[in-house]
C-alpha cells in the first residue's frame, strides 16, 4: 500500500484517442492474466452474491481500486479476466462513477462537500484552505476534491476522509486535518460521525 502512485504525465488512458486499426480487446485469458489471489477470491465471492455475475462489476472494480490505487488498465484487465467480461465493458462502468478513479489521483481521499447546503456555510473556503495546506505541507498520494452532497448537511461544512465524515469544519481546521493525514493519525478525533459520543456543537443547547 505504501508505494507511491505514478504521477500523471500528459494524456493517459481514457484521454487518448482510440486506435481504430487495433481490434477491440477480448476477454483476457484467465491463464495469462496475473491476478493477486486475494483480489481473485474477492471478485469470485462478489459474483456469487448475485443472480447475474455482471452485477458484481461495481464492487469488483472498487476492490481492484483498493489494490491498485485506481482503476488502471491493469486493474481492469484483472477484474475482466476473473469476471469473464471485456475490459471495454468495465471501462464503460468505471468512467461513469465518481468514486471509481480512472486516473492515479491518490490512494487516500478527502472529499469536501461543496453542494448547496455546505455552500451556504462557506464550504468552498474550507476546500480551498485544505488544498492550500496540502500543497504547503507537501501532502502526496491524496485525492482532494470538491464533492457533491455527501448527505451530512447537519455537519456542514464537512468532508469525508476515506469514508469517515468529519465536521462541522472551519478553515482553521485545514492545517491539522492535512498534517493528521500526512502523519497517518486519526483526523480530528471526536469530530467524526462514527466517533463515540459524537454530537453537533448545538445539540446540547436543545
Amino acid at each position, binding site marked *: 500500500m505504501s508505494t507511491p502512485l505514478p504521477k500523471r504525465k500528459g494524456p493517459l488512458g481514457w484521454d487518448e484517442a482510440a486506435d481504430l486499426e487495433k481490434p477491440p480487446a477480448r476477454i483476457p485469458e484467465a491463464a495469462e492474466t496475473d491476478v493477486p489471489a486475494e483480489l481473485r477470491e474477492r471478485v469470485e465471492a462478489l459474483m456469487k*452474491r*448475485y*443472480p*447475474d455475475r*455482471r*452485477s*458484481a*462489476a*461495481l*464492487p469488483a*472494480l*472498487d476492490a481492484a481500486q483498493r489494490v491498485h490505487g485506481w482503476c488502471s488498465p491493469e486493474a481492469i484487465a484483472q477484474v475482466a479476466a476473473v469476471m469473464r467480461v471485456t475490459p471495454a465493458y468495465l471501462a*464503460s*462502468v468505471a468512467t*461513469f*462513477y*465518481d*468514486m*471509481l478513479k480512472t486516473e492515479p489521483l491518490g490512494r487516500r481521499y478527502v*472529499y469536501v462537500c*461543496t*453542494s*448547496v*447546503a455546505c*455552500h*451556504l*456555510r462557506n464550504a*468552498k473556503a474550507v476546500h480551498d484552505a485544505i488544498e492550500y495546506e496540502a500543497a504547503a505541507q507537501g501532502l502526496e498520494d491524496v485525492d482532494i476534491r*470538491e*464533492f*457533491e*452532497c*455527501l*448527505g*451530512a*448537511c*447537519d455537519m*456542514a461544512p464537512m468532508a*469525508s476522509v476515506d*469514508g*469517515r*465524515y468529519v465536521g462541522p469544519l472551519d478553515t482553521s481546521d485545514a492545517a491539522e486535518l492535512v498534517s493528521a493525514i500526512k502523519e497517518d493519525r486519526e483526523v480530528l478525533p471526536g469530530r467524526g*460521525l*462514527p466517533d463515540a459520543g459524537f454530537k*453537533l456543537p*448545538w*445539540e446540547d*443547547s*436543545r
Partner: protein
Amino acid sequence: MTESLQTKVLTANLDIPDLHRLDVYEQQGGYASARKAVLEMSQDEVLETLESSGLRGRGGAGFSMGKKASFIPKGTMDKFLCCNADESEPGTFKDRLLMQRNPHLLVEGIVIGAVAAGANRAFIFIRGEYSEQADILDAAVDEAYAKGYLGKGVFGSQIQVELAVHRGEGAYICGEESALLDALEGKRGNPRLKPPFPANQGLYQGPTLINNVETLCNTPLIIEKGADWFKALGVGNSTGTKLVSVSGNVQRPGNYEIELGISAREIVYGLAGGPLPGREIKCWFPGGSSAPVLEPADLDLPYTFEAMAEAGSMLGSGAIIVVDDSVPIVGVALRLAEFYRHESCGKCVPCREGTNWTVKMLQRLDQGMATPMDLDIVASVQENIIGNCLCVLGDSMAMPIGSMIRKFRPEFEGHIEAARAAADQAAAVGEFSAVELAATPDAGAGVG
C-alpha cells in the same frame, strides 16, 4: 419546547446504546412485526394494511407504498425488492441516521416489504459514500441471517427472503429507480425508458418493488400498531410522521421527526432555531434541492405533500434547505446548476445540453457578460427541459432555477448590473477583462 414539536416514532429508540445490535433491537420489541407478517398474516392482509395506512413513499415522489407493492404481479417467478438507500438529493440526510443507528428496523421493514410484494430476493442499494453505514448494514444482515430472520424459511415459514447490501460508487442519478436497477446489474447508471415499469420488468427483467429507506422503516410500526394508528397521525392524505432534514442557514441543522401537517415555520424556527441572529430568511427549499424555492411567507403553510404541491413546490424527500439574506441567489442557482450538470448521465439531450448551457449562462451572468435579456433565455432553457427526458434529473434543475428567476428577478437583474460594472472597472484598471476571463478554461467553474 423543541421536543414537543417532534413526534418521535421512527426515531423513538435511537438514543438506546447499541441499538444496531440485534439482541438490543429485539429487547425493544424488534422483529415482532416481521414475525407477525410472515407467520400470521397473508400477503393480501399485509398489502391491505399498508395501503389503508396511507403510507406514501418518503423518497420524493410520494406514491402510495401499499398500492405500489400491489402492482407486483403474482406468480412463482423470482421477484425483487430494492431498497433505495442512494440518498443523494442535496440537503437530505435522514436515511443516513436511520441506517446508522437502527439498521435492523430497515432489515425488518425489508422482510415485511418482501412479504407484501411476494419478493424472494432483496437488495439494499446504498450510495458508496456511506461506507460506514454500509458496514453497519452488512453486520446487521449477517446477524439476521444467523438468526434465521433472512434466507430460506424465515422465522421457520416457507417464505424465502435473501438480502444483500450493494454499494454504489458515487452517482446521483442512481437514486432514480430505473438507473438504480442498471447500476445494480453492473452497468452505467442510465435511466430506462418507461414503460415497462419496474413492477413488471425491473431488476434482471423480473417484477421489482423499489422503496426508500424511510418508507420501509415505517412498515414494522404499521404492522405492529395498525393502519388506523398510522392514519391518525398527520392530516388528509399525508399520514404518519416525517423525518425532516433541516440544513443551510439555520441555527440548529439536523434531523427532526414531525407529524405531517405542522407548519413549516414550526420546523424551521421552532426546531431548527431559525436563521442566525440579525439574518432574515430569503427563501427555502421544502423538499431537497430539486424542489422549487418558496418564500418566507410560505412558512406558515402546513408541511404536507398537498400544501407544498399547491404552493407550486413539493415535499420531496423532506429536506428543508434555508437560504438567508447574506447569500446571493445567483451563487445558489449556479451551484445547483453545476451539480445537475455534473450528475446528468448524458442520455437525453435536453438534460445534458440544458444543464450545461444553464451553467454557462449563469457564469456569464456572474462575470458581467450578460444582459437582462439573458434571463429570459435561461428561463426558456428550463422550460424546454421539463417533461422532455426519460427521468426527472433535468427537471430537478429546471424547476428550482426557473422558480428562482421568477421570484428573484430584481436580484438577478441587480447582479447583472453590478457584475458588468465590476468587469468594466477591472478592465479600465488593466486587470483581466470579462472577455479574457471567459477565454480562460473553466473560469469561475467549480465542480464539473
